[in-house]
């Protein structure tokens, strides 16, 4: 079979409801969201020929393929690094389609990360801290009481916040903005529940004096799937195609996910800088060409570090960028318009990828006007989604 470069596009998105107790297996959530993404695109699940998820997803490819009646799976792969994988899955799917290896790539992430286990609580089984998930250094944290993602994330952010005088109140503005978006999003857990800066300031300390409860993403049950195919084929399917204009990943030397204390300068996010450099170069565009952004927001400081890493503002100017109203619907860069992982749900960043798709289609509940390009970022990976 002759091989040639093939442009990739997102043809379908599908999700379960986002809840705190799904009441069904993670595999069922995976199957439901996968079917929904296929329905959205207008393809049969039987024709899926590539599958991608996170290394830490608990569902098995073969079992999910059996649920969906997949006829012949040509390619399976998983992306390491916890939530850093979110945009990495888009990157991988793009590459598989570009290389002509797959026609219908299913990306899924489904979990009962509230009812079955909780990322935000102390670990119950420390043997989970093994390498292979991009989280190999967590075992160097746990004996010291650094047992949760918030504790790891806070240590990563503290020096940055100290250097630039970023206060917890500054972070609160991100949280307030995203909850405002969530308040008008019926799919969001915090639908109709906006907060004020005072609510943020009154929420309890998680990591003092950096992170309060309302600086942290939710814990959620749910599944999100995305269907990637060729641009040409997407044009004949049900939805308006969403081009994957470019995507990439960057893991600079000595960088790791979240327990990320070993690279030279902790006041920057080298992985985001690395992604930005390669991505802007690949698509021939820059920060000013993005009309919206979906930025991985497990914890509010990491939104600032990514905004700076991608060049939306200069190092240290993230807090002032936010203060200027940049992230609002009428701002320079409407960001996490579904409410983000803080406001909508924590489906490990994949729900933010889906919001990027909706902004390009023009179907977001918080639709930004005249959208051509959207950046989706999960820190270690990013993609530019564009109109056809």
């Amino acid at each position, binding site marked *: 079979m002759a091989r040639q470069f093939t442009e990739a596009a997102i043809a379908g998105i599908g999700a379960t409801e986002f809840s705190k107790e799904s009441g069904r297996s993670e595999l069922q959530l995976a199957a439901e969201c996968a079917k929904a993404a296929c329905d959205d695109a207008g393809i049969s699940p039987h024709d899926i020929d590539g599958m991608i998820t996170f290394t830490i997803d608990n569902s098995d490819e073969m079992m999910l393929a059996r649920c969906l009646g997949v006829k012949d799976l040509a390619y399976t792969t998983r992306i390491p690094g916890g939530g850093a994988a979110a945009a990495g899955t888009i990157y991988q799917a793009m590459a598989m389609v570009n290389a002509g290896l797959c026609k219908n790539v299913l990306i899924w992430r489904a979990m009962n990360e509230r009812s079955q286990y909780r990322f*935000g*609580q*102390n670990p119950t089984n*420390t*043997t989970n*801290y093994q390498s292979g998930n991009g989280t*190999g*250094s967590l*075992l*160097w*944290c*746990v*004996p*010291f*009481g*650094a*047992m*949760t993602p918030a*504790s790891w994330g*806070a*240590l*990563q952010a*503290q*020096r940055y916040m*100290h250097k630039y005088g970023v206060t917890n109140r500054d972070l609160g503005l991100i949280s307030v903005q995203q909850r405002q978006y969530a308040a008008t999003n019926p799919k969001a857990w915090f639908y109709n529940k906006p907060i004020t800066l005072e609510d943020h300031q009154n929420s*309890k*300390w*998680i*990591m*003092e*004096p*950096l*992170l309060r*409860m309302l600086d942290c993403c939710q814990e959620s049950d749910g599944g999100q799937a995305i269907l990637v195919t060729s641009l040409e084929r997407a044009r004949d399917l049900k939805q308006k195609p969403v081009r994957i204009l470019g995507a990439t990943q960057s893991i600079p*030397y000595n960088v790791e996910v979240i*327990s990320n*204390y*070993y690279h030279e300068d*902790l006041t920057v996010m080298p992985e985001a800088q690395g992604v930005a450099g390669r991505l802007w170069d690949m698509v021939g565009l820059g920060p000013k060409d993005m009309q919206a952004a979906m930025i991985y927001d497990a914890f509010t400081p990491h939104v600032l570090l990514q905004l700076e890493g991608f060049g939306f503002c200069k190092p240290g100017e993230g807090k002032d960028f936010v203060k200027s109203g940049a992230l609002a619907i009428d701002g320079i860069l409407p960001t996490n318009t579904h409410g983000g992982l803080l406001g909508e749900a924590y489906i490990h960043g994949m729900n933010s990828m889906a919001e990027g798709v909706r902004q390009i289609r023009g179907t977001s509940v918080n639709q930004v006007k005249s959208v051509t390009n959207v950046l989706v970022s999960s820190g270690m990976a990013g993609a530019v989604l564009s109109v056809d």
Partner: protein
Amino acid sequence: MSTPEQPAAPAAPKPTRIPPIVTLDAKFFWEGADKELFLGQKCGDCGEFRFPPRPMCPKCFSLKREEVPLSGKGKVHSWAIARHPPPFGFKEAPIIAVIELEEGTRFVSNVVGVAYDEVVQDMPVEVTFEPTMNNHKVPVFRPVKK
């Protein structure tokens, strides 16, 4: 033979801190810590220090490893107080910190013997050891005495 009439000396409270998670490549480190030695790893050929410990030198690819005592001196590079959920095994919220060691590598640990509001950025600290469950010890850091 014990004489039941005599009151026993009050037993020291049992350590509640979680023991280290020991992997083959870091076994030397935790065995050293049990003996109150703070060890680092450097390349047996080019002398490059590295952390976390790993089997190969990223500079010259040598598999020769040297375990050397570190000075145990460093500075508080980054820190925070773990409030919620209360970390398992601590009676009081611990000060968790990234310590930048004199040798140039960094190490996550606790700052002890200091009040929450006395920790300052780049505060000089030195290593000491605290017991964990199962009779192990881990390196923690206290302010350098003036």
